[in-house]
């Protein structure tokens, strides 16, 4: 029978051989930590209530806005609202978790020095935190809001295997866009003070305007329409709506084919990730130079 080797006698684990492997390790570590932080703060009942209350509240605001104007009539725009509010919590969850990852490490737990100087990929760690936020805060919202929309509001959703598969593909690109926004937001949080806590909400609110989250981009002025078309999140929501909703639903890009929408989703996501990586690197260098990386601020 083999004898157990004492822990201290075991060889130290070999470091990952490549940068990619190190990034994946860091991301999975960040995800694990983020998931624990997001999910184990309360008992399962309260956690589920929390998961349901926010997204349903957000969706119902739009529904009542609609009914306040339409007076009880139903129309295709209701489906536009439901899908937008169903998927938007992924954005808020992802961006919020990334920024909170930095702020909590810096201001609350004061672990940022240890984490930043550890032999991990800091970017990978933040990506893991962001994915945990998306999973914890956003995934239930998608499901619950779509069910509420279908069952209680009578929104017609196309739920076939192919439409679900296309939604998953589009959402994978959408998550790429969310990670890009999250990294840029963290870059900004490196140089800002206490109000960075409210930054994710504020950024989410601003993107709400230009990404066609709750209304078609066609109602915006031309300049804002052009700005919105630069964000992968806009193309992601448009792609998901085209897949899940009937053709009569209002569209943000009525002139574009569905294939074009998916192509633009891929192109803008790639561009956003490259841009975000550059901006993050710049902000990180600047914060290191100014010594603000671990600077606590609170008033």
């Amino acid at each position, binding site marked *: 029978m083999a004898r157990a080797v004492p822990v201290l006698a075991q060889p130290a684990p070999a470091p990952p051989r490549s940068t990619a492997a190190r990034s994946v390790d860091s991301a999975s570590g960040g995800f694990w930590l983020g998931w624990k932080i997001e999910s184990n703060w309360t008992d399962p009942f309260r956690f589920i209530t929390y998961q349901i209350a926010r997204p349903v509240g957000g969706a119902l605001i739009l529904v009542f806005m609609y009914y306040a104007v339409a007076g009880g009539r139903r129309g295709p725009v209701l489906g536009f609202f439901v899908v937008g509010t169903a998927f938007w919590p992924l954005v808020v969850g992802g961006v919020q978790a990334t920024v909170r990852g930095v702020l909590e490490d810096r201001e609350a737990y004061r672990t940022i020095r240890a984490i930043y100087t550890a032999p991990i990929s800091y970017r990978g760690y933040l990506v893991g935190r962001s994915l945990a936020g998306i999973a914890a805060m956003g995934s239930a919202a998608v499901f619950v809001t779509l069910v509420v929309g279908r069952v209680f509001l009578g929104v017609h959703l196309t739920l076939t295997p192919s439409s679900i598969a296309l939604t998953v593909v589009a959402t994978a690109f959408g998550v790429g866009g969310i990670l890009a926004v999250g990294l840029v937001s963290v870059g900004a949080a490196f140089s800002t003070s206490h109000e960075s806590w409210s930054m994710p*909400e504020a950024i989410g609110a601003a993107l709400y305007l230009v990404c066609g989250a709750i209304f078609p981009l066609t109602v915006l002025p031309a300049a804002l329409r052009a700005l919105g078309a630069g964000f992968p999140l806009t193309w992601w929501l448009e792609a998901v709506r085209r897949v899940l909703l009937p053709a009569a639903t209002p569209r943000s890009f009525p002139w574009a084919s569905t294939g074009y929408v998916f192509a633009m989703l891929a192109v803008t996501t790639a561009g956003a990730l490259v841009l975000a990586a550059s901006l993050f690197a710049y902000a990180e260098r600047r914060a290191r130079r100014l010594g603000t990386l671990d600077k606590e601020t609170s008033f």
Partner: protein
Amino acid sequence: MSVRAVPRATGFTRIVRAAHGRAYPRLIGNFRDKTWTVYEILLPLLGTFAFVYVYKALHAPDRFVGYVIMGGAMTAVWMNVMWMMASQLWWEKKDGNLELHMIAPCGLLPILLGMSVGGIFMASVRAVSVVLLGSIAFHVSYSLTNIPAFVLVFVVALIGLYALGVTLSSLFLVWGREAWHTTQIFIEPVYLVSGIYFPVRALGFATGMIASVIPLTLALDAMRQLLYPNTHPKLLALWVEIAILAVLDVILILIARTSLKKMELMARREGRLGQES
């Protein structure tokens, strides 16, 4: 060298000094680091504009745009109450300042009063900015003839909301990480039942009345009645709403005082004051 003895402040003077001492860093901080204007004013303003475009997409009458602008202004107050009042003692606990607050010979209430003053300044700047910039951007017109009543509603609402903030802060005093998440729960659902972006009457009279426990609901309805006297579907008559708000203020202040004392005692007894989670 002799040390000059500073006379110990007592009574009302102590309350004023303590409140001033706590309000000071908030007020001064706003002028030293102005990045908050981006996150507290500019970006949330764009979020408010998004809801304006929802009504534009629905071809709603112009007064609905005014509803959103007023709602956006009041969200500034609500967010301030939730983030910078209700959860502030939790932040202080995490920052390690709470023990200092607890041993200060003035009690927690004057400190929270000082926080409110600083918070009201920030929230008012944001609310006024939303109203001004929103009204200019979307050419919103109001039929406001009774300005004193409008100011009265705003002031009565502020008192009630910040008293509610103090009440919630006492709860957050004994909470751990759930405090942050609870703050989140108080955003969209409260916006929904308070009718932040639509007339609360759309929820039905009964729901509107239940939602009136939150001062935001009646305050917004009263302001909208004053801004659109002939067209707004009111929940209750204007002066009835103002009277209810005033009664709510008194009740919330009493609850805040009692709750703060109870929770402070419980937190001391159970050793949760310095407990981070």
